[in-house]
């Protein structure tokens, strides 16, 4: 047998009109952590779908050699049987079932025709220990945070005797602590002889963990870098990913033209009657014209809740305190009033509550400001196309046409559509919630550039982000949140990764 557990040779896959993969070669050694990187749309997910049997044998050309045998997977269960476990970015757990039911869902342990629940619980306990998750197997999934749910997914994969574990952006939704834990776990699994393919956009963690890095671009293998030979570094990866040098991930902003205070919150408290607690607690902040405010903090620290409480309060929190815009007290009772007042909120979950995935680009762009393309309630569809084209061009949205369904765009392009939708409302304050989550380096750079242009035009941006690098690279001033409160305000001179984390974990 060869030293490789997996060899994918000359894999090509075509969709109508697009060549998604052309002659891709990808090899993973036994017990190796192999990171797969590339911009969105480079073909990473497609390659993994070919490997796991989502696209059945015959649907692509080329060979998959796994454990020394040429494999012909017709469906996902075939690849699972062979020993390949895949964990998707969107977790596939049942929130109302327990941890042990989830781990063995579809793979139930049986005694005769019946499920053997006692055995299931015993095995589940063992697996939970293996992934270092300290919860009882009877816990309901919905009671766990995303980080712990991720671990349950891994336990589920381990329950099926995997030799090769595929993780698709496992840390995208995790905070720094949970990410760190996950990476430690992956290394431990490596020691137990499990090979791992990890798709990620976070270059730091790749450098931290990878034995090998393979870069895909436009459906082709660009190169495979070897960490032990010292070939893996942030600059090298980025260069191969985008096919050009990016001198700095964060574009420089030369003229900072900060004006008068636009938004002021004082003693701002939001009570969530469903959770029965204050999700935002006694917050004081101010936002000036032409500045980027960074709001840092861990997940669940109340950042999104703060944004929603400003943006017309769609979750119906009980609000207290005072909000002033341009010195006048404002009470916004509905998102439509917030939009009218000049606030826009680009949501953190673009697929969940940001975009109309079944609709095309132009109707998404116009959705929050149909007044701009209509007269007395009657739409001017041609005007809408014109507006759509303007944003498609100015935001560099890559799509075959304006009629393209938004659900089929890559993450970065979806984010730009979402951004376009809110820019069309003509906001004075733009709230960006995790503006670059799950999008590639090239698209990130474009979004940062756009942000800088908007600031130059006099807009103010509130940027909520879990990525410390982004907060440090883009902000003019940083508020750090934890447990619903502002724990501190930092100027750019004071702010470092350490000072932020210190406040966030107070």
């Amino acid at each position: 047998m060869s030293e490789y557990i997996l060899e994918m040779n000359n894999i090509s896959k075509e969709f109508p009109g697009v060549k998604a993969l052309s002659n891709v070669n990808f090899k993973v050694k036994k017990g190796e952590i192999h990171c797969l990187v590339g911009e969105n749309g480079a073909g990473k997910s497609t390659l993994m779908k070919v490997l796991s049997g989502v696209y059945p044998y015959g649907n692509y050309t080329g060979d998959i050699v796994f454990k020394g045998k040429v494999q012909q997977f017709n469906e996902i269960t075939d690849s699972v049987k062979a020993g390949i476990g895949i964990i998707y970015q969107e977790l596939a757990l049942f929130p109302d079932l327990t941890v042990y039911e989830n781990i063995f869902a579809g793979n139930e342990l049986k005694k005769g025709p019946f499920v053997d629940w006692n055995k299931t619980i015993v095995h589940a306990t063992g697996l939970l220990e293996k992934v270092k998750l300290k919860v009882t197997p009877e816990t309901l999934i919905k009671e766990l945070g995303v980080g712990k749910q991720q671990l349950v997914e891994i336990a589920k994969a381990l329950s099926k005797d995997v030799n090769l574990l595929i993780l698709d952006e496992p840390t995208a939704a995790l905070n720094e602590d949970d990410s760190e834990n996950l990476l430690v776990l992956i290394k431990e699994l490596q020691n137990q002889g499990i090979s791992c393919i990890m798709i990620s956009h976070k270059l730091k963690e790749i450098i931290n963990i990878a034995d090998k890095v393979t870069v895909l671009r436009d459906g082709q293998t660009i190169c495979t870098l070897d960490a032990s030979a010292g070939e893996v570094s942030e600059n090298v990866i980025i260069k191969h990913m985008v096919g050009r040098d990016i001198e700095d991930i964060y574009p420089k902003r030369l003229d900072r033209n900060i004006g008068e205070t636009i938004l002021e919150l004082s003693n701002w408290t939001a009570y969530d009657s469903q959770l029965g607690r204050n999700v935002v607690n006694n917050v004081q902040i101010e936002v000036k014209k032409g500045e980027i405010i960074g709001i840092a903090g861990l997940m669940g620290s109340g950042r999104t809740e703060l944004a929603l409480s400003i943006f017309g309060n769609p979750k119906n929190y009980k609000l207290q305190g005072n909000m002033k815009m341009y010195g006048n007290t404002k009470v916004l009772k509905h998102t439509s009033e917030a939009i009218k007042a000049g606030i826009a909120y680009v949501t953190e979950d673009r697929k969940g509550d940001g975009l109309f995935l079944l609709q095309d680009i132009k109707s998404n762009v116009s959705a929050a400001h149909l007044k701009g393309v209509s007269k007395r309630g009657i739409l001017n569809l041609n005007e809408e196309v014109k507006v759509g084209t303007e944003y498609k061009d100015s935001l560099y949205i890559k799509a075959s046409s304006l009629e393209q369904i938004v659900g089929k765009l890559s993450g970065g392009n979806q984010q730009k559509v979402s951004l376009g939708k809110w820019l069309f409302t003509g906001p004075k304050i733009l709230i960006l919630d995790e503006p670059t989550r799950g999008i590639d380096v090239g698209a990130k750079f474009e979004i940062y550039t756009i942000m800088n242009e908007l600031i130059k035009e006099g807009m103010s941006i509130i940027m909520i982000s879990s990525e410390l690098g982004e907060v440090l690279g883009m902000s003019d001033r940083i508020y750090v949140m934890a447990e619903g409160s502002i724990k501190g305000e930092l100027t750019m001179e004071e702010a470092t990764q350490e000072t932020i984390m210190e406040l966030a974990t107070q």
Partner: protein
Amino acid sequence: MNFFGEAKALVKANIRDYGMYIALVVIMLTFTIMTNGLFMSSRNISNLLDSAGYIAVLAVGMTLVIVIRHIDLSVGFLAGFLGAIAAIFLTQMGVSVWITIPTILILGALIGMVNGVLVAKIGIPAFVATLAGMLIFRGALLQVTEKTGTIIIKDDQFNAIGNGFIPSIMQINGLHLLTLLVGLVGIILFVYNEISTRRNKMTYGFEVMSNGLFSVKLVLISAIIGYITWILAGYNGLSWTVIIMIIVVVIYHFLTTKTVLGRHIYAVGSNPEAAHLSGINVQKITYIVFGSMGMLAALSGILFTSRLQSATTTAGTLFELDAIAAAYVGGVSSAGGVGKVTGAIIGAIVMACLSSGMNLLGVGISYQYMIRGGVLAGAVIFDVMTRKQRA
């Protein structure tokens, strides 16, 4: 691109929409051949369209309800109940037709909005809320007709809605002149509208169909309108029911495709959370859609009562399911955000064609139900397959 290449690309891109029209034509041709032309006779087509009317208007409303991810089971007996109220107004209370009809329509809209409030404000699942409504209106219908039994209506103006035809100015070779004129006006309006839309697009510099294909489209659709008009003119001409159907479709088609309200309805159906965050009042849209459904149920009740010239104790039975079937045959998706008003009408006509054709062939009622069920399943399967293909 050459002519056929362009035509092929167009069909491919719109396979779901065109598939429905093709299915309708195939069904019509099949029945015409099997009945030796009797199916396409003027009299049969006229009857068929009249019998489709009260389901078609319900299907239009139901499509929008399903687009916003809800359902309305109450509309059948609501139609029956409001039809009976109309009959009572006309016979026992002596109210004139001109007051009765608007009152009933407004009453329907208000009852629909109550459904909307139950669903959007109080948060009861639409299935349950309207199931309750279905039981209540069934009881209410029995209650109001309890003493009298079937209420016979002798008002000629009211009965004309379901049985009458537009007046003929004169007959030419046995053809109904006013009907021909209406058809001609329809064709002219259609051609004018298409040409001005195209010109407007060109001034914006957008891509449009090539001249050849565009002319073929104009000629083809004009010919279809002309042919249907000619068939209808051979009997008694356009019926008031068909006129009402056309008005409903034109209004709702305009509303759904060309207005902010229409766009908001599809936005709510496609992603309610995103709609809310986009400043759309989801509750208000839900009230409006259910209100419109109630109003169309009232219209359906008026059409049906007028067609029977009486209000019966069982009027409206299973209308809601026929309307839901027509909406699904017409391409609405229960996942929300997808579905067209024109599709709903075609769906209703497809179902009416099946009934009429099978009646002419003397197919037993038991088989009729099975075949209609099969067509419904087939339409949805086709829908799912074409969606997958595009994905």
